[in-house]
């Protein structure tokens, strides 16, 4: 009876509809005791919907959920918690000004008389932390600890509640390579103690490294369940998207020419007045893609905003060719020749309740031919937008629909079309593929490389090391508001970059 497994969670024919849209279509799935099961699928494939049903945040229309041999109706998360199911959400559910202990005990506080008893809770947390090697500081405030430790607080939150089925939603999206390998180590520790884990992800490398089995979901249906050690990343990717895919980008070597962007010793503050850029300098040449690698919060946002004119600098100089960009307003910067694909496309990239046509001319509506004698020329705008839709493969029922109604990938394509068609000399792409699926990601990368080949300077800011390694010609590592290293994809690897990103290694300045 080698095939006999202890099944802790079983889903039978689970179906969830949102209006006409079938998010999950009769999904069957089983989780075995002590294993790591990966749930692989593109954005919008229905992975998160499925797990939200297991955790009681959504209710299925059809199907059954069985936990340890018992059929359950998951009305609320508390039913799931009660039966030992815990979930680590992609966006952490932590209260920033609270301590680690306060966050963990919230909702099931220990008491001594009327008083909150943090002392005994902290002791219990310390004990569990030692047991699973989570390395937590019970009295540290959440806003003062690293993202990796915040995630371990989330794990502790569910362990503290006695969970033995742990669901992770895209757990590595915000981690450095070192933190990722620590997390995978924690997975092994947890499964050894008899816990069972489901990981939602679209990162093939981590599946290969950590998972025992992998269930692939496409368009709301289970496509296949594979034993990880008998498969390859290529095979997984094909199952995920349904056709052959290239996992790397083809490009020729860069032919850098004259210096395009020149950033010298700039200082800038964040909204609460802390110095975020501390004398940062670098250059981007025409015909090269410079990738800025770094962990979120080391000054990337401020850097992009400083160049694009959205944030004042206190010191230093920014130049585009011979034009001064230092502390100019965003329109000047854009007119001088900077294209900007912003990090947050909803906040800074699009007016969601404007049409695609209106969004297409957001940065040039005031100029001819879009405006003549102070009157907007809608038919010319419509014509041009139709061309964008065709050239950039924007999937939409028409150019008159609201940007809000499109998927993330298609929204991003509107921005890319707008910025590229304005023929900038420098293109800044901040997190250009965040939340996009495999197809859209490779489209974006191709566009960036095409811009480079057309002799533009490209500045790519990304938290995804894979993206930096694949697309950039030259890599600069940002840490604590400064560039701490320079290298190229050929000279380095993700481990080394990770150390540099964590401020533990400096290199590459010899040839600046």
């Amino acid at each position, binding site marked *: 009876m080698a095939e006999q497994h202890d099944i802790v969670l079983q889903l039978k024919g689970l179906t969830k509809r949102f209006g006409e849209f079938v998010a999950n279509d009769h999904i069957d799935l089983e989780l075995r005791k002590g294993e790591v099961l990966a749930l692989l699928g593109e954005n919008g494939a229905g992975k998160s919907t499925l797990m939200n049903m297991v955790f009681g945040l959504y209710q299925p229309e059809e199907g059954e959920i069985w936990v340890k041999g018992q059929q359950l109706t998951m009305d609320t998360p*508390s039913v799931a918690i009660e039966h030992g199911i815990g979930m680590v959400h992609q*966006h952490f*559910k*932590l209260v*920033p000004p*609270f301590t680690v202990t306060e966050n963990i005990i*919230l909702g099931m*506080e220990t008491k001594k008389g009327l008083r*909150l008893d943090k002392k005994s809770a902290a002791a219990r947390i310390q004990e569990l932390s030692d047991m699973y090697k989570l390395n937590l500081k019970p009295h540290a405030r959440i806003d003062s600890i690293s993202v990796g430790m915040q995630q371990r607080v989330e794990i502790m939150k569910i362990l503290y509640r006695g969970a033995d089925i742990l669901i992770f939603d895209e757990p590595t999206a915000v981690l450095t390579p070192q933190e990722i390998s620590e997390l995978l180590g924690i997975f092994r520790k947890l499964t050894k103690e008899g816990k069972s884990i489901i990981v939602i992800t679209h990162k093939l490398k981590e599946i290969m490294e950590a998972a025992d089995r992998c269930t692939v979901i496409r368009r709301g249906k289970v496509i296949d369940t594979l034993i990880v050690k008998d498969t390859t990343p290529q095979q997984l990717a094909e199952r995920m998207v349904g056709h052959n895919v290239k996992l790397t980008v083809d490009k020729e070597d860069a032919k850098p020419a004259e210096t395009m962007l020149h950033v010298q010793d700039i200082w800038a503050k964040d909204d609460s007045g802390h110095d975020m850029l501390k004398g940062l300098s670098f250059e981007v040449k025409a015909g090269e893609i410079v990738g800025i690698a770094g962990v979120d919060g080391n000054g990337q946002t401020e850097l992009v905003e400083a160049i694009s004119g959205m944030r004042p600098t206190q010191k230093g100089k920014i130049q585009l060719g011979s034009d001064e960009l230092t502390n100019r307003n965003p329109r000047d910067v854009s007119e001088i020749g900077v294209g900007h694909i912003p990090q947050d496309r909803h906040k800074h990239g699009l007016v969601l309740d404007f049409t695609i046509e209106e969004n297409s001319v957001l940065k040039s509506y005031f100029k001819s031919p879009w405006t003549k004698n102070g009157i907007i020329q809608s038919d010319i705008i419509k014509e041009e937008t139709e061309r964008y839709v065709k050239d950039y493969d924007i999937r939409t029922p028409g150019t008159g629909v609201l940007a809000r109604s499109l998927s993330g990938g298609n929204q991003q394509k509107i921005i890319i079309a707008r910025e590229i068609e304005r023929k900038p000399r420098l293109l800044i792409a901040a997190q250009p593929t965040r939340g996009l699926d495999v197809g859209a990601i490779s489209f974006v990368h191709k566009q960036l490389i095409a811009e480079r080949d057309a002799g533009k300077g490209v500045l790519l800011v990304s938290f995804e090391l894979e993206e930096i390694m694949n697309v950039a010609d030259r890599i600069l590592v940002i840490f604590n508001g400064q560039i701490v290293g320079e290298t190229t994809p050929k000279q380095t690897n993700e481990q080394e970059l990770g150390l540099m990103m964590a401020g533990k290694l400096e290199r590459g300045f010899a040839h600046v």
Partner: protein
Amino acid sequence: MEMIAFLLNGTFVFATALIFAALGGLITERTGVINLGLEGFMVSGAFTAGVVSYYAEQAGLGAASPWMGFLAAPIFTLLFAALHAVASVKFKANQVISGLVVNMLASSSTFFLVKLLFDGAAETPILNHVFNKVYIPILSDLPIVGEGLFRLYPVTYIALILAAIIYFIMFHTPLGLRMRAVGEHPGSADTAGVRVNRLRFLAVLAGGMVASLGGATVTLTANSSFAFHTISGQGYIALAAVIFGRWHPIGALGAAIFFGFAQALKDQMQIVEAAKFIPNEVFYLLPYVLTLVVLIFTSKRSSSPAALGEPYEPGKR
């Protein structure tokens, strides 16, 4: 010397109402609901105190009658607090507008009720029995501080004790932890099994009740009756005290005392010979101008609850 003692005493007399209202505002705002309705809750409390104490007097309750009014104020004010809670928490209306509506409704409806109850009079009848200042034995005989701190209305001591209790609840009990969590990051609280909107609803009710005690204090100490202008903006000053006090009970207490000082100064300056040439209106403006100035200098580094003003919808990420 004597003037300092009077100034100190006056500070606490005026501050008492502001302390109650600021604490009420704090309870609500800490859970993430903006409480612009403080003014209305104070008006409602002042009205109830005036009316109920009057009828208690008529019924022959004597010195107990102001206490009747004081205790009735939070009960009647539940009506207005419930309005704000239903609109802003249950139906997720704009919290600022909901608060303003409460203010307008409270001032106009109480004015109307006064006319209805007292044959068209513009204010409630003058009360014979209001709170008397309590002389604390021994301490009240000390120089300066005796007059300044130990000859105050009983409600002042209640306000100070209440501030300590609310501080304890906020920072040393599970309830306080949950309230702060709901105001900072309701999504976290929700996934931890805290019922966000229920807690907010209750906090709006509790805050309204506490704030109404501030209104009752005005009627039952300084004024002896309730009229349309009895409160005149003190609710907004109390809200400023919440902000100035950085949403901390002890901070809000300190800020309320500061604004109380501004009002006491107004009274004392009118008596000072050297300041006679300054028009009275200037001193009347003082508390409001100070409020503005303080807000200008503190709002930039304010530390409001992160989710203040955002209705919580569980589905939203």
